[in-house]
């Protein structure tokens, strides 16, 4: 996984609460493998009409935000389905950070696994950043994970992130390698547990 330390880039405001993973990537694209270019269908039904033409009013279609590296949204971004393709779509489009007041639990778990930063700010702060971007679409944001702050013009906002997730993003840790280092403890747990909870193993069929 790629490490995340500091990022500066165009930021696209999506002024909606409860942006769910069905909106981020509609279900019909879930059979796609990542090498098919999942970034192309990010927000597909919000970005394009039924004939495949761009919807001019969707922010990601505006010239200043086409190349966005950051998305700013209202509360509960990424709620709904556990589809990791939602994170693949954002990442493969070029988004490296989403800023919002809250995130769907499974979505933010998936994000950290793939190097996409989910930065939490207060409701009013998200609204303020989105308003600043609407006033000046060219305004780049800087997101600094080490300092846990967002620089937006002459304003600086502190953001929160779970410290474990922060460390994982900064270091680009691989979970499986880490878990493998505890192999002996897992085996010991399993032996102890099977003696204590024999009923937890399914009856042989």
């Amino acid at each position, binding site marked *: 996984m790629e490490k995340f330390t500091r990022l500066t880039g165009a930021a696209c405001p999506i*002024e*909606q*609460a*409860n942006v*769910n993973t*069905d*909106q981020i990537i*509609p*279900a*019909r694209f*879930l*059979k796609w*493998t*990542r090498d098919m270019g999942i970034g192309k269908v990010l927000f597909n*039904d919000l970005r394009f009409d*039924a004939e495949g033409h761009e919807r001019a009013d969707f922010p990601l279609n505006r010239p200043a935000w086409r190349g966005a590296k950051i998305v700013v949204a*209202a*509360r*509960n971004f990424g*709620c*709904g*389905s*556990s*589809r*990791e*393709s939602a*994170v693949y779509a954002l990442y493969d489009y070029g988004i490296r950070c989403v800023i919002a007041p*809250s*995130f*769907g*639990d*499974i979505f933010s*778990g*998936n994000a950290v*696994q*793939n190097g996409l930063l989910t930065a939490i700010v207060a409701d009013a702060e998200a*609204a303020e950043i989105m308003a600043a971007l609407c006033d000046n679409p060219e305004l780049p944001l800087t997101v600094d994970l080490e300092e846990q702050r967002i620089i937006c013009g002459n304003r600086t906002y502190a953001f929160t992130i*779970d*410290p*474990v997730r922060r*460390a994982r993003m900064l270091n680009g840790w691989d*979970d*499986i390698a880490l*878990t*493998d280092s*505890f192999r002996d*403890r*897992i085996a010991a*747990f*399993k032996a102890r*547990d099977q003696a204590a*909870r*024999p*009923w*937890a*193993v*399914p*009856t042989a*069929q």
Partner: protein
Amino acid sequence: MTEPQTIVDKLWAAHEILRRDDGESLLWVDRHYVHEGSFHAFAKLASRGAGVAEPGLTFAVADHYVPTRGSRTNIANPELARMVRQVEENTAEHGIKLFGIGDPRQGIVHVVGPEQGLTLPGLLVVCGDSHTSTHGALGAYAFGIGASEVAHVLMTQTIWQKKPTRMRVTVAGATAPGIVAKDIILAIIARIGADGATGCAVEYAGDAIRALTIEGRLTLCNMSIEAGARCGVVAPDATTFAYVKGRPYAPHGADFDRAVEAWSGLATDAGAAFEREVTLRGEDIAPIVTWGTSPEDALPIDATLPDPAREPDAERAKRVRDALDYMGIAPGRKLTEIAVDRVFIGSCTNARIEDLRAAAAVLAGRTAKVPGLVSAGSSLVKQQAEQEGLDRIFRQAGLEWGESGCSMCVGINGDLVAPGERCASTTNRNFRGRQGPGARTHLMSPAMVAAAAVHGHLADVRPLLAGRRV
């Protein structure tokens, strides 16, 4: 004396292999369910040349992509056929038991797990599907995970987690006649919001919850994720033990008795502390339907639609206006004036035998004014419904009786609501485009969907139940 513990603490402690200094714990996974959509995870295994650590604790179903109409052994759509074949190949390669398309036990993963006795009280259950919270109904700690985590569980049978916030939702007292689990959970979500339980493990408690059957509790816990919860759980009791007993994969004989003894100790101790508490009164809960594009947009059936002009908060007003626009309905109208184009009875939320019976009790001897599809939660539920003659009631009412799968809840098998069409649905998500691009979804209980079918518009089911046995 040890400190009183919640059921969440007890389940957590029983599965914690180790805790790092930073607070992250490595947990043991008792059951891992996979489905066609888990292909990303199998690809990750292949790329690492890794195997499955515990194939005996891993079970697979074909549910998301299976057709509900036409041939299931010779699937016409090549993309669906490929997805179903892929799960067959991946599970065969790794020695994982599959309830596949030709298996009489095939069905939706969250119906099959409990039905087969694979999901038990006291287990930690994961699956690459957000509605894994369903299994908490039996007193399991069950949550949905993403593809990377699915790969991790396949390779190690463990998962890294941070202990969630403990939250208790109490529904005190009895509910009124005709009120079911779907009404209770929609009332809870309307009260706390679609992110009201984010980061929380929720225990459902109180007389109204205790009075629910296991099937009702499955519906309740299923939609925990729609309030943002990591998982939902109901402490196991005599109702739970009676449900589990005799199921194919459940412990038998002396093993079962020993298990019941262990399960009986899972309930939250008196005086145990929850970080958050919410209480609803059962008597306040009416039959509920959703009107908007988030499950939190839920109102009693006798209510009128919200008016953005009367919303003091500008953001809330915008959200209400956007939702009403998408749904094609005008502010201030009565919910019961909203005409529907079709109905769907199915999904992991509401397609168990009691759900089908409840819908059939309304539809018996009546005709649906709109078309609709009924898709049982599992092939065994379908078989039982046919033995009880429920399929004939649905057909005679004019509805289609399909095969089992996720079907029109998520629409990836081709069962879609057409653009602009309005569907009364027993499912779990009324998101924009969830049931197909441009589709408009109203969530409600199976009996309420049946009432909408009979009237051709949203309606209170209770008058239709007068004098009927339900």
